């Protein structure tokens, strides 16, 4: 086992440089350390100017997503030991504008997320006196997988379509739309379909499938999008081809 490991970190200091540059750091190698622990070591002991996001350190908050050796991962869930020996390259997630060092801008995603109404839409709220909206375990199972999304942006970073066509709403936002579509308490399916059946919605996806491959919580956004395509097609057949199927 080596005593140290070299981290090559992409730096971007807009006040100093016009573009990103690589900086090497030698950190102690400890088998129980994640990549995030190594970054924290750099921040605490070697270079306090290094900027990156992190919060929970246990794969829940979704804020420490970065490219490690070119792969989008949560740095709090990637052991140094699992990576090939030699230097480890750490970059900000691909496909997003970089603000500083490893920090990228999330505004585009947040705007897109808002468009799919990621909340329970009700035509009419029932009075509080009527009690809770109850669900059976089967009804919960319908959408639970999609509710595991932690907005870590790894799926966007793995999606070449989002990089090539930045107007694409993207995997996580569509998976989250499905999370509410499949919820028995929701009544906003049609409103979301109107947004997502546009060209920048589900039809921009060409099913590369990498969004699901990198997802740390097994949400499977690729499946969510393909299911959406099927239901959008059936919806179109019902409303257009079959005159009696019109809404």
């Amino acid at each position: 086992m080596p005593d140290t490991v070299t981290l090559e970190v992409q730096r971007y200091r807009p006040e100093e440089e016009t573009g990103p540059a690589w900086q090497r750091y030698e950190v102690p190698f400890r088998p129980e350390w994640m990549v995030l622990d190594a970054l924290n070591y750099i921040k605490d002991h070697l270079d306090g100017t290094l900027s990156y996001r992190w919060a929970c350190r246990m794969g829940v908050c979704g804020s420490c997503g970065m490219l490690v050796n070119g792969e989008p991962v949560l740095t709090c869930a990637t052991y140094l030991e699992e990576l090939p020996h030699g230097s480890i390259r750490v970059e900000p997630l691909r496909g997003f504008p970089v603000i500083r060092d490893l920090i990228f801008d999330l505004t585009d995603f947040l705007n897109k997320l808002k468009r799919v109404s990621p909340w329970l839409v009700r035509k009419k709220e029932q009075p509080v006196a009527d009690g809770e909206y109850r669900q059976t375990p089967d009804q919960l199972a319908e959408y639970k997988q999609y509710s595991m999304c932690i907005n870590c942006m790894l799926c966007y970073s793995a999606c070449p379509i989002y990089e090539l066509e930045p107007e694409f709403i993207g995997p996580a936002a569509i998976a989250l739309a499905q999370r509410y579509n499949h919820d028995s308490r929701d009544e906003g399916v049609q409103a979301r379909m109107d947004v997502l059946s546009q060209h920048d919605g589900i039809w921009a996806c060409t099913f590369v499938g990498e969004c699901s491959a990198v997802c740390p919580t097994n949400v499977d956004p690729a499946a969510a999008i393909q299911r959406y395509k099927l239901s959008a097609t059936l919806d179109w057949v019902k409303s257009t081809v079959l005159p009696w199927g019109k809404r």
Partner: protein
Amino acid sequence: MNPDYRPYHPKWHRTPIPIFWWVRKRAYLKFTARELTSLFVAYSAVLLMVHVRAAGGSEEAYERFISWLQSPLVVALHVVVFIALLCHTVTWLNLAPKAMVIRLGGRRLPDAAIVLGHYAAWLSVSGLLAWVLVGT
């Protein structure tokens, strides 16, 4: 110092997308290769239409078309087309469970059953066509 930098005004860096983005990862390369098999699907559709048109024309024109089909270069091309079509079809059918969730008696049908159903339908239609074309 960066002369373009103004304090308190964010200056984002956007990495341009390389033209060879599809060789960055094996998965992207596989995806691109599969997308390219669509060209062979389009070619076979056009070939079928040309074949039907030739069958509706004069006997001499049809013979000419058939002898073109039998030339070694075209046969070699069509072997490649056939392999590409098989790849396209198999990958398409294997992905079917991603899009389809079928419930029977309240239980979700396993992915393997959906894939097998698609293969069964594909073989049945192919068998029927083969019977119509060769058997009659």
